[in-house]
């Protein structure tokens, strides 16, 4: 992630450059969208959640004290949004009928892929994502941040406000839990 570019964009945005905000969204939208998807599992819901996150960024950018820490601040904000949305959807029973074997979208062949291989790849991807989504919130968070978002332990430690040793042990437990969920498919 081009942190220097992000810092300059934040500075410009704060000075009133709306295009800088658009550029920030472009830089981070894929990461934030996938983080949201990891929580709510459903694409429309994830899109809505990601939009709400960036709306909050727009409204509360002045709360960011250190422009070089925009990434960590954005993730903290995003995780708070994701947690709240997850709880809200869970209370509504949004996740109660979902299982690891739920079929979702149809088969989309990428170039050069045979239908069988592509089916297997997409099926595996769906299963793994579903298994991650089914983890307890605290476990899911560390997996999403480390294994999917590819953040460093230092970054995760800063975002979650936890000592690095705690992050590692949480991550280990989460990975073991995920392994157990995927046991039948391994």
């Amino acid at each position: 992630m081009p942190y220097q570019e992000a810092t300059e964009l934040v500075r410009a945005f704060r000075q009133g450059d709306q295009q800088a905000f658009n550029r920030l969204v472009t830089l981070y939208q894929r990461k934030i969208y996938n983080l949201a998807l990891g929580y709510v599992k459903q694409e429309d819901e994830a899109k809505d959640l990601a939009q709400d996150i960036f709306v909050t960024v727009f409204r509360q950018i002045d709360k960011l004290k250190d422009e070089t820490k925009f990434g960590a601040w954005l993730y903290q904000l995003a995780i708070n949004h994701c947690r709240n949305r997850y709880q809200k959807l869970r209370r509504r029973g949004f996740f109660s009928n979902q299982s690891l074997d739920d079929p979702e979208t149809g088969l989309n062949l990428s170039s050069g892929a045979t239908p069988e291989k592509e089916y297997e790849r997409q099926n595996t991807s769906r299963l793994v994502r579903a298994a991650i989504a089914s983890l307890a919130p605290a476990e899911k968070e560390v997996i999403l941040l480390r294994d999917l978002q590819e953040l460093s332990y230092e970054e995760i430690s800063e975002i979650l406000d936890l000592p690095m040793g705690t992050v590692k042990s949480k991550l280990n437990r989460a990975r073991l839990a995920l392994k157990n969920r995927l046991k039948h498919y391994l």
Partner: protein
Amino acid sequence: MQCTEARSLFTDFADNTLARQELHTLTDHLLGCRDCALEWREFQQTLNLMHSLEPQASPPDLLPGIHAKLAQKGVFSRAWDVIESLNFSLSIPAAAAIFTIAMIAGFLLKTSPMEQPDIFHTRAARTGTLQQGEIIATRRAPAEAGNMFAVSHGGTPQDMSLMPLAQTALATHLPPDNDAPRLLSPDMHVLIENIDRAHQAGLFREMLHRNWHLHRINSDLFLVHLPQAELGDFHALLSRHRFALMPAAAVESRFGSDKEVLTAAIRFQ
């Protein structure tokens, strides 16, 4: 090395960050423990599966949607954002106290003995077109203080002291200073005058027969929860007695139609 300790080191093992001695101990354990060796293989497979996941592309309309939401936010949303940003918080007892003080202040300011309208009187609907030069008042006339209450049987506030209604408001809005359950804020207050115990019991029987929920606060003060759709039945029961009802709008069967259940505080005198 115990199995639980071995498995707690899997992430460090995968990251290649174990100290030399720990690495040797773990490796020896995995060579000798079939279960942990299987666990480690499955752990690696799980990591490989996760790391092979391709991030999904974000929707193309994500940014336009953000701007659409920003444009939609109106005055109240922005005000709410400001309030949220202040991290303003208020404890429930403090909020209840502020609400109660505001209610009582408003109630006491409005209370004054004035002639009350007959609750069964209805104004004829306006018919016909405007006459030339006729002026229609566009500003709503201020409600008379007497319109706060509806009184049955042609009674007036002078005949029927409404202080008990104020007492009912106090009793049902003030947070309790003991462990008594917190009371719901009633939608309407009723004062029933000159009722003996037998008729009171009869009234309660009728309410319970209709499956309305009745709560006794004390011997003279009760709360009743009834479906809004049965408000007309409630009026019918009240009309057998001498009563005052606050607010006056509660005499309409459509009162509180935005709720499924209404709460009435009933004081007997």
